[in-house]
Structure formats: structure tokens, C-alpha cells
């Protein structure tokens, strides 16, 4: 269980945006190409298969949190240890 939890699954915000853009681009592209090809050979099943291939490709490229989606992690500020300790000290003085 610890091993499963240690697998990273998150993307950063920029990565999520890019993953969604990329998946939509792939699926739309395969859909359009499939429609044209299916119309040319007059087989709608080929259109569906090509769209299915686009779905699989989009899943491979955008479902796993590949490193390309983790390049802009949130920059958290450091915890202000020193200030809070001074506060408590000053608080004590005021009391």
C-alpha cells in the first residue's frame, strides 16, 4: 500500500492545462481524419476505429503524470519560523 501511495499521480496546474489541451487536440484530430477517411472509403466503422486509436493515444499521453506535466510546481514560501517565534516572545513581554 505504501508502494502504491508512493507513485506520483499529480500534475501541476500548468501541466493539467496542457494535458487537457493535448488530449482534446489529439481526439479532435483523429476524429476529423477518421471522418474524412471513413467518407472516402464509405466505411463508418473505420471512422470509429480511428477515433478509438486517438482515444488510446490520448490516454497514453495525458493520463499518466509524465514529467512534462510537472515542470511548474507551485512555489510555496518558506514558513516564517523566526518571525512567529519573535511574536510569541513579544507576546510574553506584553503580558
Amino acid at each position: 500500500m505504501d508502494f502504491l501511495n508512493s507513485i506520483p499521480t499529480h500534475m501541476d496546474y500548468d501541466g493539467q492545462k496542457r494535458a487537457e489541451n493535448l488530449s482534446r487536440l489529439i481526439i479532435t484530430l483523429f476524429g476529423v481524419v477518421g471522418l474524412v477517411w471513413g467518407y472516402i472509403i464509405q466505411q463508418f466503422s473505420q471512422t470509429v476505429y480511428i477515433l478509438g486509436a486517438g482515444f488510446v493515444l490520448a490516454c497514453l499521453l495525458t493520463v499518466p503524470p509524465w514529467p512534462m506535466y510537472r515542470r511548474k510546481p507551485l512555489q510555496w514560501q518558506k514558513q516564517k519560523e523566526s518571525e512567529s517565534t519573535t511574536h510569541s516572545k513579544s507576546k510574553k513581554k506584553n503580558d
Partner: protein
Amino acid sequence: MRELSLYSWQQCGYVGHVNSNRLSEPNLSKKRIVLYFPKPPEPEFGAKMHTVLTRGNAILAYTLSVLAGLTFCCFLSTLFVDYRTEAHMNTVKVVVKNVPDYSASREENDLGFLTFDLQTDLTHLFNWNVKQLFLYLTAEYKTSNNVLNQVVLWDKIIQRGENAILDFKNVNTKYYFWDDGEGLKGHKNVTLTLSWNVIPNAGLLPNIFAIGQHSFQFPSEYAKNRM
């Protein structure tokens, strides 16, 4: 007073600081402290892609939407196709009998027997939005009982990829040609028509009438012997 540790969230527009001088003011009681937490991120474009499952869900949902759109395009592309075509029919042997209809009232009704020829080429009717054709041969006639009688005598399913060039000679009907009285004997004008249903992947289910029909007449005497 409790210890406060404040974080700022750069990307999300943290709006202000709590001044450390003010925190140390003596009259600043616990109740008056206002904590500024970072504003939660706006649910922008990528907001529903944050875990593996939501990404998979978003992609699947989008794929299905695209599939629906493609199917609709397929339907639109065949909306104005003309599915009519010529068919040639002829009757070979026509006999009428007067026999009890045990399937209904046991009264003696007219029962027609006929064999027919049929030639037509339906190959060009198949496109990417036609899965199969359902052909049926109908006899239409008028009697004193009814203004319009329609009896289906024969039918056939042609799936896409099967041979659609039909050339039948002297074929028996599949279904009985019952009249509901004695309207067939000596009838001068019975019309055979071929029609078909177009069964599509998506869209309408039109009933098409073939161009060309055949009229024939029944003999004016009942046949005695078995055919």
C-alpha cells in the same frame, strides 16, 4: 496567543500580509485577528484534470462527444441521398383457389398462388450509412369489400457486402396471398410493387418504393388440383 504561520501562494494571487508589527500590538485580541488564506484557484480550463481518474473520465467523455458529432455528420452526409431505383417484375404462374382459412374464421376465402420473376440491381444504394436493406414485395388491389388491399407476398434482407444484384426466376411467394372474401377470382388489376426499408447506422428509416411495377389478373375459375 496562538502561533501564526502564514503562507503566501504566489500563483494564486495572495492579497495581503498580516503586519508583524500589528500582531505584536498589545490590544490586538484573538477575536480581531483576521487570517488571510490564499484565494482558491479559479476553476480554469485544466481544473478537472487533477487526478488519473478525472483525466481518464474527461478524455472518455470528450471522445464520446466527438463520436456523437461524427455520427451526426455521417447522418447529414446521407440525408439527401435518393434511394429509389428501377426494378422489373413479372408474374409467371397465377392460380386462385377457394379454401377454408383455418388460421382465421374457417370460412372459405380466396387464396392466390403465384410465382414471379424479379430483376433489380441495388448495389449502388449501399453507402457508409446503410447497414442493410429490407425488401418486400406487395400486392395491391381493390375489392368490393375494401378500397385498398395490401398483401406482403415475399421479403428479403440484403446486408451490406452481400450480393445485391437480384435476378430471380419463377420464385414462389413466402407468405399466403389470402383475400378476406372472394375478391381474387377473376380480378383484373392486381399490382405488384417492390419496396424497401433502408436500415442506417444513424438517422431516418425510410420506406422506398421501387420505380416500376407489374399488374396482372387472376383467372376467372378456381383451380381444382394441387399446385
